[in-house]
């Protein structure tokens, strides 16, 4: 099963993309890489996901946009982004210099917008995969709505799939009543991988003002607090579909990476943990490699799904 004497290999195939390690920067905590490059090494990631991108530029929601919660945080950024054109023309080419596979996270208000987004990025050099966000809780129209019932999820996925030929990831919401049926619909619609999970919906009240803290009232809950929900979603979905699953929710250390892998994820993305510890990825991958060596694993992929296999 393994040769403990060799240096463990962390690489993984994600729907045809070759990643040198299974750690991905989640969408929304990495911008388009410019800020991250000033703090830490982009090369530490197996792949990076850029900020949720819409067809047209968005200014985002009124502040406050972030707020701490027990072992987590709320955000209601509201998809602040320069729009798909600028991303395709300026942001991606800059980021591509780092040689790390780039996943563009896209968000639409209508099926037509999803199609247009797929078409905008098709053929753009440097865009290695699209991640369809049918799960954003922080925008009025669309957003999460597409991820709440199987039919809408199927249609949104299909809309992108028709225009975009490369690897297609669909990112699901834990707020859906039955995530397995949504996952199946995404795969039927043409998803080549699934990301689980986006944020839960939360509110925090400011005791001083006696009103919600966030300018947008509700925000997306993430961080270690939600990890058990994310692991449950991965555990359920990875058994039900044949495409690879990206585990997301509360990753702050290599033990969380292992937990998601055992639950059935072949790669893992780090969201809010990166905001707290931007230099963590290199350390986490070192720890993962050491764990594999100690446990006699040639590649952590050997663990994927151990919890249900």
């Amino acid at each position, binding site marked *: 099963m393994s040769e403990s004497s060799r240096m463990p290999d962390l690489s993984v195939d994600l729907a045809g993309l070759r990643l040198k390690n299974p750690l991905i920067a989640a969408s*929304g*905590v*990495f*911008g388009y890489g*410019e*800020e*991250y490059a*000033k*703090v*830490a090494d982009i090369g530490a990631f197996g792949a990076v996901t850029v*900020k949720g991108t819409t067809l047209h530029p968005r*200014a*985002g*929601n*009124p*502040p*406050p*946009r*972030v*707020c*701490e*919660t*027990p*072992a*987590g*945080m709320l*955000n209601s*950024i509201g998809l*602040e982004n320069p729009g798909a054109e600028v991303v395709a023309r300026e942001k991606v080419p800059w980021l591509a210099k780092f040689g790390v596979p780039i996943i563009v996270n896209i968000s639409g208000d209508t099926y037509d917008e999803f199609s247009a987004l797929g078409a905008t990025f098709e053929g753009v050099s440097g865009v290695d995969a699209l991640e369809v966000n049918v799960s954003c809780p922080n925008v009025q129209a669309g957003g999460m709505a597409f991820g709440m019932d199987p039919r809408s999820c199927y249609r949104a996925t299909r809309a992108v799939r028709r225009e975009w030929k490369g690897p297609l990831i669909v990112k699901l919401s834990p707020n859906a009543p039955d995530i397995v049926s949504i996952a199946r619909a995404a795969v039927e619609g043409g998803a080549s991988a699934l990301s689980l999970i986006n944020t839960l919906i939360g509110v925090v009240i400011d005791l001083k003002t006696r009103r919600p*803290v966030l300018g947008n009232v509700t925000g997306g809950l993430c*961080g*270690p*607090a939600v990890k058990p929900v994310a692991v449950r979603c991965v555990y359920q979905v990875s058994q039900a579909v044949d495409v690879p699953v990206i585990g997301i929710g509360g990753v*702050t250390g290599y033990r969380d990476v292992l937990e998601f892998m055992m639950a059935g994820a072949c790669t893992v993305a780090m969201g*809010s943990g*990166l*905001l*707290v*510890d*931007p*230099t963590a990825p290199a350390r986490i991958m070192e720890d993962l490699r050491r764990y594999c060596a100690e446990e006699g694993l040639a590649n952590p992929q050997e663990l994927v799904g151990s919890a249900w296999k």
Partner: protein
Amino acid sequence: MTGETGAAVDERAQVLSVERGSGRTVRALLSSPQIARSAKPMQFVMVKVRDGADPFLRRPFSLSLIRPDDGLIGITWDVVGRGTEIMALWEPGQEILVLGPLGNGLEIEPVSGQPRRLYLIAGGTGLAPMFPLAEAAKARGWDVSVFYGARSAEFLLDYSVFDGLGCHTQVATDDGSLGRKAFVTDLAAAALAGAAPGDLAVSCGPIPMTRAVKALCSGIGVDLLVSLEERMACGTGLCKGCAVKAAVSEGYYHVCSDGPVFRAQDVDLGGAKP
């Protein structure tokens, strides 16, 4: 004049001392050579108050002391919640993760020819970043006046350093418990009225104060830089959380990566939280 956001490091800083000041204020001296070496006045750091997930996010604090040669930095805070409470219990010798220096900061150009005056207007813990700024300005030949206010004496940081630097310092409290019973804008108004071209005002404090200072300076026609605060998750420009409304466009600036120092006319202070 505001600086460029440069590279930041995540440094394991050693706590050298933790001193309580008046009221609920605390000052810590940290050994953090890498940050001390590259920090500019008005920059800030993101502090992990203790290990683990509670509290989860780091906390932003302005550098209240920068000693590149000794590898030292200082932060000064008010105990207002869980994070700052835990920080007040730090023990000398303890190691703390500190990410910085962050934000644009403010580089003061040397005075050549004509004398120039810097008006520092601060409220409460807003005085913290003014210490390194006054020091740098004095070293570069500026005259420095400090106008400092707070609700009452117990919310005032120790401002005696400014006297040592040779700054003109005036203090006010809302309740008159120390200095004049007045708002800090009342103190600054007369002085600012005498400002000459090339003089500069810098303010840091609660939004209502900053708004009043902005009105005052724009009325008189003095250049004003404002240092802003907003709730932050990363402090490094990653999350887009720390939005502050731009004065002219529909969009937002980000306090951590575009600021914390802004030209007063660029930001809509009605938009930030009061």
